[in-house]
């Protein structure tokens, strides 16, 4: 398979597609592989719940964070997840605006990824707090103390950004789901499914009015989602750039973080669609073309990120601030140097293989590169948070950070929760946006 297939294989048509896709959601018994996949995911999810409960009981002291390195896994993983989440929005919103046909068959998966990526990210800021039960103090509610949150703090901007992003993603996802839910309602084999999907479809019947407003609105919302996701990531970048801390105080962070979001987003989408198209027999609609396109996007964004890394080094030495240079040396050759170089390898060097068409078409290699990118992005955040913090301006406050078992359990726990969520989506709703596919498929069987 080294000739690139079209967006949909020849002979694909609407009825077959509709039958096939809705059958996946409506089948009475789940696939065996589904059960095999869901078991560990569920286990990890329960581990997540367990470690959260213990955290609330014992306090953030159970983590590796200390005096100079006061931020740790919670923030690293938060940034990591929110970046993964954004990838989905880019595909569903940005490429909707560009009317790219290939997007129609994968935007449902991408958006679901956004949903659960954002959910995982959303947990962390609360876990991170020393007194999590007071997290609502970040919200400007009418309190008897006459107090307000401190609106100049990037963390507060972040709080609002996440709030908006999660809500918007859910609404956008659900809106996009309405017509397909209607389809499921009308094809549901059992009464229960009829009622459930029927209720969720809210009575969408595809009347002329419903369609007219639908397209008007969907376009507008897509046009909103695109800047929103950029703002969310700029603000996450500002959580760091807004501080005077060594290694953080850089005007480049907002775009830098957006590049990172592209990269990890595309990588995760690739990792989801490549197995799913096989397991769910979707090769007709998610073709090697998709893999190829995403491969190119992955390469492009990796070049962006590479540029950011170079500028990072350049500004440090060009700026010539002593503390910055000390910290950067430490980053390159110090205790944590391995993690920095892993970042470079996974995020910049390996993706360069994608210049070759044959590589782009080799799904195994593409998969490995994507995994590398996701690991690399985590390492990047580890470097930004830990390495920067462990070399503050005064040598007397130098320090070191070692993660504890609880750090790792929480991280893997959220990973499990993410997979669990995706599997639920696969089981319950159409993994391909059927009504959008109809735009590009033959209306009738040949």
């Amino acid at each position, binding site marked *: 398979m080294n000739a690139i297939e079209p967006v949909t294989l020849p002979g694909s048509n609407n009825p077959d597609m509709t039958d096939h896709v809705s059958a996946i959601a409506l089948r009475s018994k789940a696939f065996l592989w589904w059960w095999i996949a869901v078991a560990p995911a569920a286990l990890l999810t329960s581990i997540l719940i367990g470690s959260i409960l213990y955290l609330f009981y014992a*306090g953030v002291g159970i983590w590796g964070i200390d005096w100079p390195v006061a*931020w740790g896994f919670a923030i690293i993983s938060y940034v990591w997840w929110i970046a993964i989440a954004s990838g989905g929005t880019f595909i569903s919103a940005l490429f909707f605006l560009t009317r790219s046909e290939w997007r129609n068959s994968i935007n449902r998966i991408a958006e679901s990824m956004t949903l659960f990526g954002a959910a995982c990210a959303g947990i962390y800021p609360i876990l991170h707090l*020393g007194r999590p039960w007071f997290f609502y103090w970040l919200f400007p509610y009418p309190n008897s103390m006459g107090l307000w949150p401190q609106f100049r*703090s990037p963390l507060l901007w972040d709080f609002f950004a996440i709030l908006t992003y999660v809500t918007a993603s859910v609404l956008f996802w659900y809106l996009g789901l309405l017509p397909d839910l209607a389809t499921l309602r009308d094809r549901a084999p059992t009464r229960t499914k009829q009622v459930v999907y029927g209720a969720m479809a809210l009575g969408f019947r595809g009347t002329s009015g419903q369609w007219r407003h639908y397209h008007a609105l969907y376009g507008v919302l897509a046009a909103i989602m695109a800047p929103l996701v950029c703002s969310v990531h700029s603000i996450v970048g500002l959580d760091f750039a807004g501080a005077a801390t060594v290694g953080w105080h850089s005007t480049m962070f907002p775009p830098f973080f957006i590049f990172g979001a592209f990269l990890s987003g595309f990588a995760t989408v690739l990792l989801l669609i490549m197995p799913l198209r096989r397991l769910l027999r979707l090769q007709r609609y998610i073709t090697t073309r998709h893999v190829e396109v995403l491969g190119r996007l992955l390469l492009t964004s990796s070049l962006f990120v590479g540029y950011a890394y170079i500028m990072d080094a350049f500004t440090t030495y060009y700026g010539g601030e002593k503390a910055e240079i000390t910290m950067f040396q430490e980053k390159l050759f110090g205790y944590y140097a391995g993690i920095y170089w892993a970042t470079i390898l996974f995020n910049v060097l390996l993706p360069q293989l994608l210049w070759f068409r044959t590589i782009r078409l080799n799904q195994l290699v593409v998969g490995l590169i994507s995994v590398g990118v996701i690991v690399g992005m985590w390492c990047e955040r580890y470097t930004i948070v830990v390495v920067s913090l462990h070399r*503050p301006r005064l040598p007397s406050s130098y320090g070191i950070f070692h993660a504890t078992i609880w750090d790792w359990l929480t991280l893997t726990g959220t990973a499990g929760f993410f997979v669990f969520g995706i599997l639920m989506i696969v089981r319950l709703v159409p993994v391909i946006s059927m009504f959008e596919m109809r735009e590009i498929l033959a209306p009738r069987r040949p």
Partner: protein
Amino acid sequence: MPPVNRQWRGLDRLARDPAFVARASAEFPQLAAALAEPRDRRSVLKLMAAGLALAGLSGCDDGAPGGVLIPPVLPADNTVAAGSRMFATASVLGGYADGILVRHVNGRPIKVEGNPLHPASLGGTSAIGQAEILGFYDPDRSRGLIRDGEPQSWSSLLTTLAAQRDALGQGAGFRILTGAVTSPTFSRQIAALKQRYPEMRWHRWDPVCRDAMRAGAVLAYGQPVEVLPQLDAVDLLVTIDSDLLDSAPGHLRFARDFAARRNPARTDRMSRSYAIEPTPSLTGVAADHRFVVSPRDLVRIVPALAASILRGETPAGMPSWFAPLAAEMQAAHGRAFIHAGPQQPAEIHALVHAMNEALGGRGATYTLIGPVEADPVDQAASMRDLMADMQAGHVTSLLIMDSNPVFTLPGFGEALKRVPFSMTLAAETTETGGQTHWTLPARHPFEDWSDARAYDGTVTILQPQAKPLYDGLSPHALLALFQAADQVDSRDVVRQTHGLTDGQWHDALATGVVPNTRAAVSDARLKSGAAQALPPRPAGGEVTLLFRPDPHLWDGRFANNAWLQELPRPLTKLTWDNPLLVSPAIAKRLGLANGDRVSVAVGDASVVLPAWVMPGQAADCAVALLGFGRTDVGMVGQGAGYDVYPLTGGGGPVTLRKGTGREVLACTEHHDPIFTDAGDYVRQGTLAAFKANPGFLGGPAEQPSLYNRKPTGPAAWGMSIDLNACIGCNACVVACTAENNIPTVGKQQVIHEREMHWLRIDRYHEGDPADPNILFQPVMCQHCEQAPCEIVCPVGATVHDQEGLNVMVYNRCVGTRFCSNNCPYKVRRFNYFDFAGEERRPAVARNPDVTVRARGVMEKCTFCLQRIAEARIDADMANRPIGADEVKTACQSACPAQAITFGNMAQGGDIAERKKSPLTYTLLDDQGTRPRVTYEARIFNVGSDTGT
């Protein structure tokens, strides 16, 4: 459970101890009730607080635990129902007294301050003195009479003593063992005892003693005179392995006098000081020149120095600095002073006496006084006799007070077994107490009457600060019981000694000094032989092993004091441990890194302990720190560090071998010990450069900024820290801990870098590891006007008030820790666990004017906001502005050298003056944070210029 340090478990154990519960029920009804049904330690502590309140500690009561108010039955006499008062007393170490005032809040002792009227203190305190209040509240303090492990009643003690009185007869077998004593009352009682038991003997033993100095004085003058330096009159100070500013009696006063001549911006006659020492000391670090010399060379160099000064010889084979120094000393005739430390042999002291006389210092830079100590003896000799008699069975009854020989003197435990009747009087559980027949709980100095003399002989009356927390016996009462059957009130005993009128007595109590008790100036003449004294050459061997007291645990008596255990040692920044300090050369030879185990053998005695590389230590030297490794001690000191006393007994060559494995040591500094550019933080220069351009180290006026909003309150608080005065003694750190209810976190958490000190003293080594330049810099919240921490807090938990304070509102903090990230000075501390709740001291011991911080909130230096608030209210009530120097922060008032100045800059005063100093600079001024704390750069008066 969170990994909490062992030391917290104590009170639980206590609560389960039936004996304690029984006693408690007698003293504190609620407490017993609480202990009866199991509860969490916190509530027990609360009730203990209530119990202590009932026990009479607290007159009135604001916010008593459990939402109840407990007014006294009778109006509390002469305690102000609320607010604070000071009561004078003294903190005694090695017999010598430093005057202190104890602050009482709501009628209970809360904090130790210096006594400005006391000659040895002048308002300053030592770290140990500051920590004494914690010792007073220590739940581990020994309570109840024990005989062979069985609890006893007071009456049984009285009968036993009655039997003793009869049995002792002429007192042939009766021995009393104490530490060095200056108490007039005590010696008076001993004298009386000697009348009753003519043949009794009084032995003295301190593991850290000043025998050599005494012997040196006898060599030089034929009598044990003591030297009284006038450091503010000294232009040229030469110290030889000296503890002048570290721990010598009167060191607080010396630090003050020394500092008075150290800042060229304030004195036009900056003194110059040379330190000749084998291992870094505070005295050496404070000097302009520090010469690293091994003891084995000292015994060569000092006589040579004497020769060239006394007889004008020019010895050969001396280090390069020798000739210039000798010349300079001669040039400074009448303005120079030489001081040698207690670790040096008597002969060297004799030579130093001779040199001081020859340099015409006597009467100008120092005076001689008669011995301050009561009936001074050669402790080593005195102990040899005692041990011999004990072995021989001549000792029938032995009374041990304020001494722990079983721990500090190898072989004593064995000898003790042969004594038919032995009795220990100790405030804390000690190894000795465990091995004598009787163990009596002593009253804490804050609980009973006594007296003591200062380094210059001045007498202070020690008065009780509170009713005894646990019933104990005062040494005076015990001696009296050996004297006669009738029990005496120690107050009367003390009072008899001094024969003061009521008026004088009350003045003495109020001022903390008994007037006209200064020791008379001695007119002893120098003996001719002094100048010829020749010190013995120390034993050979490639390693010289030195024993030094731990700067904070001293000889081990403070091992159960968590504040002192967790206080980073001034030069190593180590807590909770006493590794062997090895010179870089030794480390290189044996391939030792910090923490590597090493085995030290002296003759047949040997100890295995971790090593720590000590820059600036003589190549052949290894230093073992005494005082750790206590075995029979409270929960805090249990198993902290290593006992090196066994080595002191061993004779023969010293051998070091690298052991296997490495230990993690709780050090609070994690940077590469050697620095090339410490000057970025601790600005420093020479006196010559200063004279050329006084402002050469001062920072630029103010970084330009987009924001020019300034606090506009009626007061403007500011602080200035003089790095020329700071000797790194840590008194300020403990004072801060005590004043602000700062919890200790234990070794494990210190290793996790979670120590809580609001005020830390940064220490930098600069240059060559063999002989580095060592610098100190106290760092606390800088109270920036453009505070980076405030911008990033999402809930506004840290904001600015209009008087320029960066206030931290604990109860608003949700714990994002962003403020700490964004603090360039990293002065913020976070409660990763419920450190305050896990503290072992009772809640009443806390300062009620300071919020106790919960788990998950950030905290930091507040400029002692509670003191500011008090002054603010007083000023407002009088409708006047707050005076410039009206408020003193805890660190400021504790500093013996007056390195820290704080005040209301709006009203001028000292603070405004110091801020004007040309040496003033702000830390990390490139950050444009505009701190309210500024530093005065360190100036070295180096050899090339005369400085006067």
